C-alpha cells in the first residue's frame, strides 16, 4: 500500500507539472498599438544612389491616381489627404541599410497609394516637386502593377505593408 501511494503521488505530481507547463497560454495577440499600418521597407542591395539622396519619406495617400496639383493640395490643404512618415530620414542614417521596419501612425481611413519617396535635391523652393520621385510602393497582392489599398480601421494596426525600393528601377511616377 505504501508503494502504491508513493507511485500515485509521484504520478499526480508529474501530471500537475505538465498541466502547469501548458497553462502559460502560448501565443497571444499583440498589445494595443497606435492606429495605422506597419511593415518593412526593403532596399535592393547595391542600388543606393551616391549623389542624389537628400531625404526619404514613407507616404500614404488617400487619393490615387495622383498628379502634381493633388500632391500639393493633399499635403498642404485641408483636409490633408497625403501623409508623410515623419522620421524615416533619421531612422535610416547612415544610409545603405538593407531594410528598415516602420510603424506609420495614421487615423482611420482608406489609403490608396503607399510608398517611399526620394528627395533628390536640397533646393526645395527652387525646383519644387521635381526634386521628388517615388522609388517604391506597396503593391496590390493580386495585381503587383497596381498600388495596394490599405484600410485602417479603429481596432487594429494593419501589418505587413512591405515596400521594396530599387533606386535604379523606380516605378512609374505619379507626377
Amino acid at each position: 500500500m505504501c508503494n502504491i501511494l508513493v507511485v500515485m503521488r509521484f504520478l499526480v505530481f508529474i501530471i500537475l507539472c505538465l498541466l502547469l507547463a501548458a497553462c502559460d497560454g502560448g501565443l497571444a495577440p499583440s498589445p494595443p498599438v497606435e492606429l495605422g499600418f506597419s511593415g518593412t521597407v526593403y532596399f535592393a542591395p547595391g542600388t543606393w544612389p551616391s549623389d542624389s539622396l537628400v531625404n526619404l519619406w514613407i507616404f500614404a495617400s488617400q487619393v490615387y491616381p495622383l498628379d502634381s496639383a493633388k500632391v500639393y493640395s493633399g499635403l498642404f490643404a485641408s483636409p490633408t489627404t497625403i501623409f508623410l512618415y515623419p522620421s524615416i530620414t533619421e531612422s535610416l542614417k547612415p544610409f545603405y541599410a538593407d531594410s528598415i521596419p516602420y510603424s506609420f501612425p495614421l487615423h482611420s481611413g482608406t489609403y490608396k497609394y503607399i510608398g517611399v519617396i526620394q528627395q533628390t535635391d536640397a533646393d526645395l523652393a527652387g525646383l519644387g516637386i521635381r526634386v521628388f520621385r517615388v522609388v517604391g510602393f506597396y503593391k496590390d497582392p493580386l495585381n503587383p502593377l497596381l498600388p495596394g489599398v490599405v484600410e485602417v480601421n479603429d481596432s487594429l494596426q494593419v501589418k505587413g505593408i512591405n515596400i521594396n525600393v530599387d533606386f535604379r528601377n523606380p516605378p512609374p511616377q505619379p507626377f
Partner: protein
Amino acid sequence: MKNPLFHIILIFLLNVTYARPNTGSITGIVSDVKTQEPLAGVNVILRGTVRGATTDVQGKYMLTGIPAGIFDISFSLIGYTTQTIQKVSVQPDTTLYLDVSLTQAPIRTEQVVITASRREQSLRDVPVSVSTVTSKMIADRLSVTLDDALRYVPGVNMMSDQVNIRGSTGYSRGVGSRVLILIDGLPFITGDTGEINWETFPMFQIDRIEVVKGAGSALYGSSALGGVINVITKEISELPEIRFRLFSGIYDKPSYSKWDWSSSPRFNTGGYLSYSNRIGPFGYLVSVSRTVDESYRENDVYHRWGFYSKFNYDFSQSRNINLMTNIQWRSHGNYFWWKSLDEPTRPADSQLNGNVNSVRGNVSLAYKEILSDQFFYSLKAIYFGNFWQDDSSGRVNNTSAAHLTQLEAQGTYTTSSANILTFGIAANYDRVYSDIFGSHPGIGAAFFLQDELTPFQSLKLTAGIRYDWQIIWKKIFSSPAATSPSQFNPKIGLMFSLDPITTFRASYGGGFRYPSISELFTSVSTGVSEIRIVPNDSLKPERSVSFEIGGSRWFSDHVFLDFALFQSDYYDLIEAGVNPNKFEILFSNVTRARIRGIEAGIKTNWFSQLISTDFSYTYIDPVDLSNNSVLRFRPRHLFYASLTGNYRQLRAEVNFRYVSRVEAIDENLVRLAPIVDGDQRVACKVVDAGITYNLINAGLPLSIGLTVKNLANYYYAELIGNLAPLRTYYLSVEGSL
C-alpha cells in the same frame, strides 16, 4: 469466453466450404488468464514455418492449410508473457481447437515488426530504432488522420503536414518528403509533389504503424532519407464482423475576443463503418467513412468521403492474393497562413474564398506463395492516383493529375536457421499532367538484397544493398532531366543480446531522394505578390548517411529503458531559394547538413498494469554546414509523456508533448509572402486527455469515449503563420458486432 455458437459456425464453415486434403487447421480463442477478456492482436506463429495469424477483436484466430505434422505454436502480445505450446499434432482434414490464456507480464517480449527487414521479426532482433502505433492507440487517442496518430512517437514531430523523424525533413513547402511512407510495404508518395497525403490513409482499417528511424533507402529506395513509416492494414476477419466508430467534437472558443471569428459553434464530426466476412477461401471487407471538420479557422473546412475495400482469396494453403482499393474525395478551403497574430483564425484576405477539390486513391494487388517452409515470395503492384484542382477566386486555378504505378517482387529464403536472404526487384512508372508542373513521364527500376546472419544465438548481423535507377523526361520523347539516375545505398546492422533483458544495437545506412516532378518543373505565379516559381531540371538527388548505436534493458520487471545515439549527414538538400531581386523562387541543391542527437525512452507499468507510463526525450543538434548555422525548421528538444490507467472496463489516458521553439525559420518566406507576424512562434506544450468505458459487461459490444485535445487551450503554431487547433471536446462511440 468460449462461445459454443462460434464453434458450431466454425465447424459448419470448415466442413462445408473449407476442407482441404492432407492439411489441418488450428483455431481457438486467446484470452487474459485473470480477467478472461478476449485479447485482440495476439500474434500466433507456427514455429519453424512462415505461417501465422493474428487474433481478432473477439480473441479468435485461425491457422489453416497446415501440413500434417508436429508443431510448436507461440502466442505473443505486448504486455503479456509469450506462451509456446509444444508438440501440437496436426492431423489431415481435422481442425484442432486450442484456446490459450496469456498472463500479463511486465516484460515486453516478442513484439513483431515487419518494416525493418522486409519480413516479420521480433522487435528485439531489429538493429535500428523502431516505434509502433497500434490500432488501439489510434482509437484511444481518436486520431482522425494519420499525421495525428504520429504526434506521440518518440523522435517524431509534425510541422503541419510534414513529418520529421529526428529532424530529417524540416519544412519543404509541401513538396518532397524526406520520410518515406508505405502502405502494406508499398510506397505511397504522391507522383507530382512527392509528398505524403495523410488524409488518404484508411484510419479505421489500420492494424499498426511502424516507424523505422534513420536512412532506409537500402531496402525501400527514394525518399527514405530520414526514416520509413509503414502503415499496415488489418487482416480480414475470419467471421462476419460489423465495426463502426462515430465521433463528434466541438472546438472551444479562443480566450481572446479578437480571435473569435464565428458566431456559431464549430464541429468536427465523422463516422466509419465496415463489414467483413470470409466464405471459404474468399474473404472481403468493405468500409465507408465520412468526416466533416468545420475547423476553428475561417475557410479551413474539410469535407471527406472515403471508401475502402479489401478482398482476399486463398488458392491453396500456401498461395493467396489480396486486392485493396482505397479512395478519398475531399473538398478543403484554402488556408495557407493567418491574417496576423491579431486575427490568427482568419486567413490572409487573398485566401479567403479559395478551395481545393481532390480525389486520391490507390488500387493494390499482392500475391504471396509459400513454396516451402524455407522459401516464399510475393508479387505486389500498386497504382496511386492523385487528382486535385484549386480555385482561389479566379486568381489561380491550377490542376494536377498524377499517376504512379509501382511493381515489386520479393523472395525470402531461409537457407539455414542462421541465415535468411531477402531479395527483390522493383519498378515504377510515373506520369503527371499539370498546368503548373507540366506533363512529364518517368520510369525507375531497382533491385535489393539483404542477408541476415545469426552466428551465435546472441548475435545477429545484417547487411544489404539496393540499386535504384530513375529517369524523368522533360517531355515525352525528349531529353531527360539532368538528375543523376543511379543510386547505390548500403545498410549494415548488428544486434547483440547480452542476456534476455538487455540488448545492444548498431546500424549504418544510406538514404536518398530523387527530386519530385514539382521541384524539377514547377513554373507558376504564386498568386502572391509578383513572386514566380521557376523550374530547375538540373536538380540532383538528396543523399543521407545515418549511423546509430543504442540499447535497451528491463529493470525490476516494471521499467523498460531504451536509448540511442544517432548522427545523420545530409548532402545536396534541396531548398526553395528566393531571389528577392528577381522575385523568383528556385529549387536548388544548396544545403549540407548534419544532425546529431540522443533519444531515450522509459516505459513503466505498475500494479499489474493498472497504471503505466511512457516517457521519451529526443535531443537534436541540427547544423547547417553550408553556412554553419542552425538548420531551419528543426526543434532542438522533443519530450513526450503518457500516463494510462486501466481499472476494469474503465480506461483513462493523459498525454503531454513538448516541442521546443524552432530556432531558425525561412525569413524570406515570411517576408515575401508576406506572412504577417510569421516570425511569432513559441514552444509546443500540449496536453491531451481521454477516458473510455467499455460496456461489454452490460451486454453491449460498445465502448464510449470522451476525449479532450489541447486540454489547457494552449496557443502555438507548428508551422509559421498557422495557429494549431484550439481545445476540442470529443465524444465517441465504437463497437463491433
